[in-house]
């Protein structure tokens, strides 16, 4: 098959991005968090914007239907931020829903149909019990042939982890190191669901045990804490509680404009120079190899080619660490490290904030939180803050080229985007 090199018909820039606090908010619904994200986004536009200039809105959301009993959420979100009667479209590709919303917004602006669009995502998950959340998420796998044998999302990624461990010798300790790294980053992110390091979680449990006169656990560091099954219980072997991202409520937005008008809104031009999306078999058993995500490799290839850059050029990445093993796969599939070397690279600190290839400086899905439909644009918010120099204590200096990697389900959708500061 002869393929022409794909490119956007015109340049697309991001002029602002913001998010709600991520967390478990019993008294907030989607519309409340969406408004918070929208207001926060408007504040980031350097020269200001009249929201009525926005011409269309794209909303990523996995299952407000099951989570909140609310379908048809896009026009509702538009209504609450005063954007009716503009077209409002929901995108659903599991946990990649808002990565896809971002891509649809890019395509719409690049086509010339619109000059200014809002791309966003929202999910409120904590209205349901953990068991019902497990069921709702599992519906994003193959309901007829995976959920039927008891598949849950932790156990789907556990299959991938098991296969990766067998093929490459990846260890449970290496997964723990990734959780520690992402919590260390999340501790510096005031909007993170877990704005706290694992060491601090450990210390507060020790203090609590002491205060209550209970036996005091013997943990002396995070690794001992994570290896203790009473502190870090097994969810689906080999994935333990601290390998899993939390059940999070949150919303995130970004404003995209055509390149030619971007300077009207900001002096810091952040252009989206690469976009890629791919699909794969819904069920793990439909794939020849489960130690990597083919869709991630295809999506990355498209994005790199469009951007004219290589994995080595990327200075910072926000990747889809719904489980610690998923971050390992991401850094391999994106070409940052060779297959089988992602976990080792993380263990050596190469993906830490001060490492050669900072990955998930926001805290990632693990610590920042994973409101599934909002995650893709949530990643973009971190790119915005890092590139515009607003990342505070977690700022990585001089980021001019960055990437986001957003996965739907166990890898049947993957979206990759590349951003350049000009």
């Amino acid at each position, binding site marked *: 098959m002869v393929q022409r090199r794909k490119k956007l018909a015109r340049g697309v820039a991001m002029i602002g991005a913001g998010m709600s606090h991520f967390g478990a908010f019993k008294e907030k619904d989607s519309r409340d968090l969406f408004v918070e994200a929208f207001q926060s986004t408007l504040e980031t536009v350097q020269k200001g914007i009249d929201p009525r200039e926005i011409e269309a809105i794209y909303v990523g959301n996995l299952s407000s239907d099951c989570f909140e009993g609310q379908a048809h959420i896009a026009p509702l979100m538009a209504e609450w931020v005063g954007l009716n009667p503009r077209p409002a479209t929901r995108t659903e590709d599991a946990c990649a829903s808002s990565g896809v919303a971002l891509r649809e917004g890019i395509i719409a602006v690049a086509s010339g149909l619109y000059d200014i669009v809002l791309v966003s995502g929202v999910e409120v998950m904590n209205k349901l019990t953990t068991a019902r959340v497990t069921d709702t998420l599992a519906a994003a796998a193959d309901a007829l042939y995976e959920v039927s044998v008891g598949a849950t999302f932790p156990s789907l990624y556990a299959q991938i982890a098991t296969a990766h461990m067998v093929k490459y010798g990846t260890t449970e300790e290496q997964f723990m190191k990734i959780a520690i790294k992402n919590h260390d980053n999340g501790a510096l992110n005031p909007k993170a669901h877990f704005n706290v390091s694992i060491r601090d979680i450990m210390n507060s449990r020790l203090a609590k045990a002491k205060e209550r006169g209970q036996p005091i656990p013997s943990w002396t560091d995070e690794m001992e804490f994570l290896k203790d099954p009473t502190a870090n219980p*097994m969810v689906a*072997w080999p994935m333990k509680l601290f390998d899993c991202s939390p059940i999070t409520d949150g919303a995130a937005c970004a404003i995209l404009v055509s390149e030619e008008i971007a300077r009207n809104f900001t002096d810091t031009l952040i252009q989206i120079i690469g976009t890629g999306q791919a699909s794969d078999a819904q069920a793990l058993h*439909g794939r020849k190899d489960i130690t990597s995500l083919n869709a991630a490799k295809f999506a990355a290839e498209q994005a790199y080619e469009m951007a004219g850059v290589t994995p080595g050029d990327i200075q910072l990445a926000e990747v889809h660490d719904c489980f610690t093993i998923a971050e390992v796969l991401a850094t391999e599939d994106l070409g940052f490290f060779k297959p089988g070397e992602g976990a080792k690279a993380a263990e050596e600190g190469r993906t830490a904030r001060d490492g050669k290839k900072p990955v998930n400086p926001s805290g990632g899905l693990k610590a920042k939180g994973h409101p599934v439909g909002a995650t893709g644009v949530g990643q973009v918010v971190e790119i915005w803050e890092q590139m515009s120099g607003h990342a505070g204590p977690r700022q990585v200096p001089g980021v001019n080229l960055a990437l986001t990697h957003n996965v739907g389900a166990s890898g049947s959708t993957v979206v990759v985007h590349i951003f350049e500061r000009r």
Partner: protein
Amino acid sequence: MEEKEFTAASFYRFLDRKKLMGSKCKECETLFLPPRPFCGQCSGNEVEWFQFSGRGKLVSFSVVRVGTTSYEEKGYSRDNPYCWGVVQLDEGPRISALLLGADLSRPDSIKTGQPLKVVFPDKPEEGGERNPVTFRVR
């Protein structure tokens, strides 16, 4: 047998009759498990039923301690986990299956590559849930 449509309903009805059935493309001979009516390999419209031997090996697995509501209702729990895995059939295709006969208290003892055989649990009562695809350690 040939009259049955290549659907999940047919697949599970065969399973109740102790047959692991997939489909085979009449054009390019690609095997599909579970069955499909259309060949995604060669875009062929003509497929036929194919009975699998039910012998295969373990590709990967997980021991689940926090299950779906449906599995918790079957009595599985943190203290009574279940195991499911990806199985590669001798004929090539893979399928997800509930795994019996492994020592779930020691997941380290479960080895990928180990030989498995399909088993057919008794059919639940009329109108009950479909039996899942189930394999046992050989």
